[in-house]
């Protein structure tokens, strides 16, 4: 009895996003059974669902950082530009220097963290509103990326990058491993220490948190650093994908997808709660939509309309009002049954 209760204690919110994702995939599976087939070919899994997972990784990783920032009542618009900068840095390092690969990774993640640090300082020490502070780097960041590469795309040959881009380990694409590892580390870091709690408390009420002895400002900075680092990792994966860092387009509009993923996970932009696992589900929902649109043959003009409509549908299904309405209907029908 007690165990059962514990199980039900899980925040009921988590079923919304999972339910939405499953429904979308099931509908697609009915329309086109090929969509849900997974084959084993050349030592790796192959199929639309795997594609979705693989394609979703960059967004999911960025969304992970975004979830933490949004949890502190912030927002990070600069991630798209950070992706470009870190991609550019990594590509240039690979092409122009003899640095070992792990150093390249470290340097670009540090660069990402450094940009996050600047965002964090602007937000929490100078007190600029997050959307504007990160807008500054969103605008100038792409310029910095252009400076790094001299304004052109940089292509490279690197086995390590190829492995990240398209390699597989135990039949599962390497980037899925990277994402899983990142998610696990983040979950451990946030939930097995008090960091997650502190971040959420800062997001929910920064003033009260400060009076509790929580270093609210420092925590915000940490959140932005983390977001920057996540964007850097996503940047590496994105350039590995095509062995080119095309800074003009790299990571463009990714911030919107990441924010969307966080919100689909049920988080409020007013801060206070961080849902890591669900954020990944949110990213998967978005990617599923994109993949469906691409493989369905809808004329390009309709891409956005389809996307908007499905997102709206998912949001409406998940909304409190709908849930209340449904539960009202249910109690009514129960009452009717009792009356009979």
């Amino acid at each position, binding site marked *: 009895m007690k165990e059962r209760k514990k199980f039900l204690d899980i925040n009921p919110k988590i079923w919304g996003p999972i339910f939405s994702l499953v429904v979308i995939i099931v509908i697609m599976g009915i329309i086109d059974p090929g969509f849900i087939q997974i084959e084993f070919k050349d030592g790796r899994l192959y199929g639309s669902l795997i594609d979705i997972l693989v394609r979703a990784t960059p967004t999911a990783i960025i969304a992970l950082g975004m979830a933490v920032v949004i949890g502190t009542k912030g927002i990070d618009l600069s991630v798209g530009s950070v992706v470009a900068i870190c991609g550019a840095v990594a590509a240039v390092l690979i092409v122009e220097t003899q640095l070992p690969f792990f150093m390249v990774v470290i340097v670009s993640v540090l660069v990402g963290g450094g940009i996050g640090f600047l965002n964090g300082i602007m937000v929490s020490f100078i007190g600029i509103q997050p959307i504007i502070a990160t807008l500054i780097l969103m605008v100038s960041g792409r310029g910095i990326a252009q400076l790094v590469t001299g304004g052109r795309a940089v292509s490279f040959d690197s086995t390590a990058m190829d492995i990240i881009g398209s390699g597989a380990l135990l039949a599962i694409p390497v980037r899925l491993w990277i994402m899983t590892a990142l998610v696990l580390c983040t979950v451990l870091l946030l939930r097995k220490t*008090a960091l997650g709690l*502190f971040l*959420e408390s800062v997001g929910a*009420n920064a*003033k009260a948190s*400060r*009076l509790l002895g929580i270093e609210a400002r420092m925590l915000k900075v940490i959140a932005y650093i983390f977001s920057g680092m996540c964007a850097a990792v996503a940047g590496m994966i994105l350039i590995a994908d095509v062995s080119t860092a095309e800074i003009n387009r790299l990571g463009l509009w990714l911030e919107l997808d990441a924010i969307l993923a966080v919100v689909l996970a049920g988080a409020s932009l007013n801060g*206070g709660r961080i849902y890591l696992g669900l954020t990944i589900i949110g990213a998967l929902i978005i990617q599923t939509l994109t993949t469906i649109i691409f493989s369905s043959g809808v004329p390009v003009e309709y891409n956005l309309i389809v996307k908007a409509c499905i997102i709206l549908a998912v949001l409406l299904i998940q909304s409190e009002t709908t849930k209340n309405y449904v539960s009202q209907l249910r109690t009514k029908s129960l009452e009717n049954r009792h009356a009979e």
Partner: protein
Amino acid sequence: MGVLEPVVDVQPLLEIKNISKGFAGVQALNKVSFSIAPGEIHALLGENGAGKSTFIKVLTGVYTRDSGKILFDGQDFHATSSGHAQTQGVSTVYQEVNLIPTMTVTENLTLLQQPKRFGLISPKRAKQRALEMLERVGLNIDPSKQLDSYSIAVQQLVAIARAIGTKAKLLILDEPTASLDAKEVLRLFELMRQLKSQGISIIFVTHFLDQVYEITDRITVLRNGSFIGTYATKKLPQAELIHAMVGKSLDELTSGSNRETSDSADDVLRIQNFGKQRFLKPVDLSIAKGEIVGLAGMLGSGRSELCEIIFGAQAVDQGSMEIAQNAVHIKSPKQAIDHGLGYCPEDRKIDGIIAELSVRENMILALQAKRGWLKPIPMTEQKAMVESMIERLSIKTPNLNKPIGELSGGNQQKVILARWLLTQPTLLLLDEPTRGIDIGAHHDIIAIMKELCEQGMSLLVASSELEELVIFAHRVVVMKDRKKVMELTGSDISQKSIVNAIAQ
């Protein structure tokens, strides 16, 4: 219950019939029925979490009721929102100050009823109107300043001024006196009587029984969401009232017991010439180990400010501070906590609770912050601590994971107290710690405070309740105009002496 409800021969203004309202895990109201006569002041009493505020919100349409019927003026009454209730003649001051902190006092007072000229709002007339409204509650402040530049007590008075200003047949006041001091309370009562004479009915929620006896005609008691009874105030002795509310008898609060000043010489805190420009004039104060120092004063006298600068929530610009005989410079609350201080702020909605987080999280946060993020308190330990606190302070919550924002006001206050008790500070600063707390718990909390200081903790308590200060303080510091004006010790402490000091 012994005392029967007197027969009301006039048609009641408001008739409540079998109102029920449940939240996930709590039945907040269970078939509540009573009625209110025209021109009556009706007390609605009960322990923290009894369902008073919920009742008020159901009545005014903020919550939808699960079942039941309400008749207002003989008509079926079904408010869909607070605004709707207002247009029907029910004006309400809810428990937490519910005004717009970012708007000016004038804008707050005239919202939705701004005087217009040529179809547009006339700021000049609005200000005039606001001044008139403030005048009625005896508040002399600049209405063109932002509301949140005033203390919570002033805000409370503004809220009352607003509610009175609308033309209503029924006025509902949910704990309006919680943060007011004696003078303001008198002023408010005068107003209530005036309204009553105009035939306006008032529902009045409070935890101060003296006030109940002073002003109300009848009393309705709720307990655990259930209706216990409606009584004529005059015919209900206090002991019976307490029994009705708590369900058991309670000893009288022991009075005047703390006179044996702790003679321990080691001061846990000593401040000298401690102050901040425009904020607080320099103060000298020392607090000994195991001592309770009370802070008395009028609205805006600087009590809260003193607590804030000691705790490092505000930077000081002059003076020195010693903690346990060591000179310290505290620049942030974190440092204060590291030095063994704790601070329970006055405005719980803004500075205290973290509404989205659960009761458990809210309670352990201060302790966790003290330990640092790397040493998380194991869940079992957390639960044990929180459960024991819930028990000790009799906090009413269905479970530990309920968001604190959904608790009743008094219970939120208890959680915040518990938060600081868990950190076991050497000096705890309490700003209006018993605000909105029911008599049973009040009793418990005073007992706990005494127990704590016997164990060696020191307390600095700012309170508008002189009665309570007199009961527990070893020493009372009287503040006026952001300045310390007097210090009373031992047998000098009495309500009268404090009032005199303030009046000087």
